[in-house]
């Protein structure tokens, strides 16, 4: 097909032209989908936040200083975001987005805590646990529910009494670490007077 003797110039030129056209095509697609993608991301995040804090529709991100503090308190578990749950202009609690390690990578989850440090909800945004085994931490409704009602003051001891799922040891433990990290974040923010600002 192609001529058998191609000069170096021809080779360079053909690759450059193909790359330029491809780049233009991609730039166009990016421009078209950019807004929709960020809207979808925001929506997914808001949905997870709402699930973790039933009854609240408004969430405000905390300052980056507070986030640094939160990350320090959570230790090894990454903290993706800390939000104030706002109802009628007043803060009623916190939503902490964390990513504890499960069996197949981080489990992105949000833990909602009210002002007194009681866990009000736990929701999982995304995870990559084994279907049928690790994924039971979402599919078994009773598993995440048992974290609800834990008190930050006594969570350290109480959380060890909760049931883990057989066959999903690492995933269950991941979810537990997530809640523990969120509680640690809450205690830290409470200490630094986060609720009163």
């Amino acid at each position, binding site marked *: *097909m192609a001529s058998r003797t191609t000069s170096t110039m*021809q080779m360079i030129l053909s690759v450059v032209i*193909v790359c330029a056209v491809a780049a233009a095509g991609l730039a166009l697609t990016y421009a078209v989908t950019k807004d929709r993608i960020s809207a979808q991301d925001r929506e997914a995040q808001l949905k997870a936040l709402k699930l973790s804090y039933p009854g609240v529709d408004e969430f405000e991100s905390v300052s980056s200083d507070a986030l640094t503090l939160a990350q320090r308190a959570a230790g090894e578990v990454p903290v993706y975001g800390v939000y104030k749950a706002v109802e009628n202009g007043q803060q009623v609690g916190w939503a902490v987005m964390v990513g504890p390690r499960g069996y197949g990578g981080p489990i992105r989850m949000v833990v909602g805590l009210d002002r007194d440090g009681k866990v009000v909800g736990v929701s999982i945004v*995304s995870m990559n646990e084994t*279907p049928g085994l690790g994924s039971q931490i979402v599919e078994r409704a009773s598993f995440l529910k048992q974290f609800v009602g834990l008190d930050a003051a006594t969570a350290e001891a109480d959380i060890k009494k909760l049931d883990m799922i057989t066959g999903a040891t690492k995933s269950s433990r991941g979810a537990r670490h997530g809640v523990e990290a969120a509680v640690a974040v809450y205690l830290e923010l409470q200490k630094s007077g986060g609720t009163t600002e």
Partner: protein
Amino acid sequence: MSEWRRVFFDGLSLENPLTVLMIGLCATLAVSTKFEGAFFMGIAVIFVLVMSNILIAAVRKFTPDEVRIPIFIVIIASFVTIVDLSMKAFVPAIYLFLGVWVPLIVVNCIVLGRAEAFAYHNSVWLSVADGLGMGLGYTIIIALLAAFREIVGSGQLQFLGNTLISLPSWYAGPNIVLLFPGAFIIFGFIIGAQHALNRRLRAKSGKPEPAPAQTGCGGCTGCTK
């Protein structure tokens, strides 16, 4: 037209990329735990295959032999990125399930394989047939595998949020079906069924059985001894 039809149907049956050529299996086994995800994976592969086949066939006369692979890869990667961005924007739930397997279509053997083996040597029109046939062949097999794994493994079949089939609640599927070993076993049965079908197809059209694959020294004509 008959040539076009032959190329198209070869992709579905006699040269099915998954059950006969057996390429691109890694992603296939990974995403076939859910019918919905597998279906959209198939759509993505069809799009990438057809578009990259068209473009590669169109520029084949201007493509210097020495740099054809980089050019193929740039074309394929561009279409995969388009699919990637579009899925993220329009079907985020499915994108979340497929995850890394969408960008990995770039290195899926089926796409590069067809570019090199077919599109680079054939007209645009025939390359469309090849892309459609191969893509559809891929989609049918992966959807079949996923539907079976989802029904048997998790006792239900969901599509875009609707539950199409739901087994009684006392049914607890064997987990192995959802794990890799189960995927291999079921896939083996699908390969068997495909070959039985192909044998019948060949007998009907009067085509001879292909000689059993010669591997190792016997399959090569490099040296005459």
